[in-house]
């Protein structure tokens, strides 16, 4: 029996729910030679700020059990390069959903960047990152408090007609109150989770592995936490959720969807296996067959 992998996200049809997560797939272009990008349901691009950024000092990467810490610190070429160069170039070779991941240091910068992205026809969805733990003063602070998350959402919604997903931080006491605040402020969807603030120490050198001491921890290790938050938010909000965090195989995609995710992002796993996404997508039909699932759309949030 033919399996229907497609899902509908804010009126957009994704051929399948699998999307490389922001920051773990560059601007898509870097991987165009290594795989057929067009098998991907969507692509979330590297987080972009108004100005180009070098990011944090290196080392930016630390290995962990079943995951890694990154402290890239939003290295990016700036919003103009995104809208005039990167996104259009990707659109020329990729027919799926293109998600611009937008960061900022102030509510105004978020709005400015989103307005620019709104004007770029190559971009389908805006994913507003209020959760980057790697940048001082920007990012995560907005995502740790319902009022500021709502303020960013409102400002951004005012400047765009494209669907806006707010990407939330797991480093919070009450994820539901923040997601609800975003929904009430007009968000079209929620992406979660971003990375957890983590740290490793090199016991030979007696210093942190990461130059910036701490960084964002993700990978299969965080899956149970991400799944819990996806479940909580999907059940507390009416808007769709893109589930993210530790997804590494087809089974994880189904688990996230059963918890309530409409689409599923794959992050760290791309770093250790650049063809993780096509492999996961390729494994879905047989797994669905084994579990008696004909259409993925059916299982979204099936766990009460």
């Amino acid at each position: 029996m033919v399996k229907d992998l497609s899902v509908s996200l804010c009126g957009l049809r994704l051929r399948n729910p699998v999307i490389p997560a922001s920051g773990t797939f560059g601007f898509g272009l870097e991987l165009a030679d290594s795989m057929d990008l067009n098998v991907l349901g969507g692509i979330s691009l590297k987080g972009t700020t108004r100005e180009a950024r070098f990011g944090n000092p290196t080392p930016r990467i630390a290995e962990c059990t079943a995951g890694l810490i990154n402290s890239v610190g939003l290295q990016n070429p700036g919003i103009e390069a995104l809208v005039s160069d990167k996104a259009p170039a990707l659109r020329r070779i990729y027919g799926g959903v293109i998600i611009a991941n937008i960061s900022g240091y102030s509510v105004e910068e978020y709005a400015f960047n989103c307005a620019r992205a709104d004007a770029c026809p190559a971009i389908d969805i805006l994913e507003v990152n209020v959760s980057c733990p790697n940048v001082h003063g920007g990012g995560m602070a907005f995502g740790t408090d319902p009022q500021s998350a709502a303020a960013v959402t409102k400002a951004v919604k005012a400047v765009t007609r494209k669907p806006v997903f707010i990407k939330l931080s797991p480093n919070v006491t009450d994820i539901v109150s923040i997601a609800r605040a975003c929904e009430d402020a007009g968000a079209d969807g929620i992406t979660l989770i971003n990375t957890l603030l983590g740290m490793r120490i090199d016991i030979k050198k007696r210093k942190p592995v990461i130059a910036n001491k701490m960084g964002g921890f993700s990978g299969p290790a965080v899956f149970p936490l991400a799944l819990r938050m996806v479940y909580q938010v999907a059940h507390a909000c009416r808007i769709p959720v893109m589930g993210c965090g530790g997804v590494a195989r087809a089974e994880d995609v189904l688990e996230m969807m059963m918890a309530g995710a409409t689409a599923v992002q794959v992050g760290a796993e791309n770093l250790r296996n650049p063809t993780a996404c096509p492999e996961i997508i390729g494994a879905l039909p047989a797994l669905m067959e084994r579990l008696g699932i004909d259409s993925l759309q059916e299982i979204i949030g099936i766990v009460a």
Partner: protein
Amino acid sequence: MEKRIFTIESNEPVARDTFRLVLRTDAPVAICSGQFVDIAVPGYYLRRPISVSDVLPDGVILYYKVVGEGTLVMSGMVPGDTLELLLPLGAGFHPEKCVSDALLVGGGLGAAPLFLLAKELLAAGKKVTAVLGFKRADEICLAEEYRALGVPVHIATLDGSAGTKGFVTDAIATAQPVFDRFYTCGPLLMMKAVCTTLDAPGEASMEERMGCGAGFCYGCTLQTQSGPRRVCADGPVFDKEEILW
């Protein structure tokens, strides 16, 4: 870039904590000097980047030093075991930019990627001299292999247990090799000394902790003369002028 399974043909210690790993696969391998492979070590989340020291029609030869857990696990693997590699990765050396005489300056296992470069240079009819620095005599590796190619090798050891006592720069000063271009790989401070003292054009192979190893995570960025560059994809080899020491 692709993912491929290789089988271990041999995995032998050749110097203090240093192993020579011969890997075979079932199809031709195309990889150039200065490029590297990224090895999935069973049980560890990230891959380990290792430079290619020689290419076989259907395989690669790597040299690695046991410095941590992943390389320790690798050192315990035996012929017949398999490893999954990502390759080819990175932008390598430019042998074609050498006019006639090349100087290769290696520190420790920096000697490994320069070996494949030596073969490429010789194949293109260039003359090659190698200066290899090690901490002590028992860490010396690859010197005989260079000599077998007909490449004159000058050794420096920090403790004087072999060759010139001191740094590669001391050995270069003693040997006075003729060269129009140099290539270096080794510890950062060594490469800095080499790049800032030799006044021919030169290239250096940089190292950085990596996430993806393939240019899309921005984990390995180096600030250079011409802006941020990814060590894994824009490098690891950079012109000496690019590097902000």
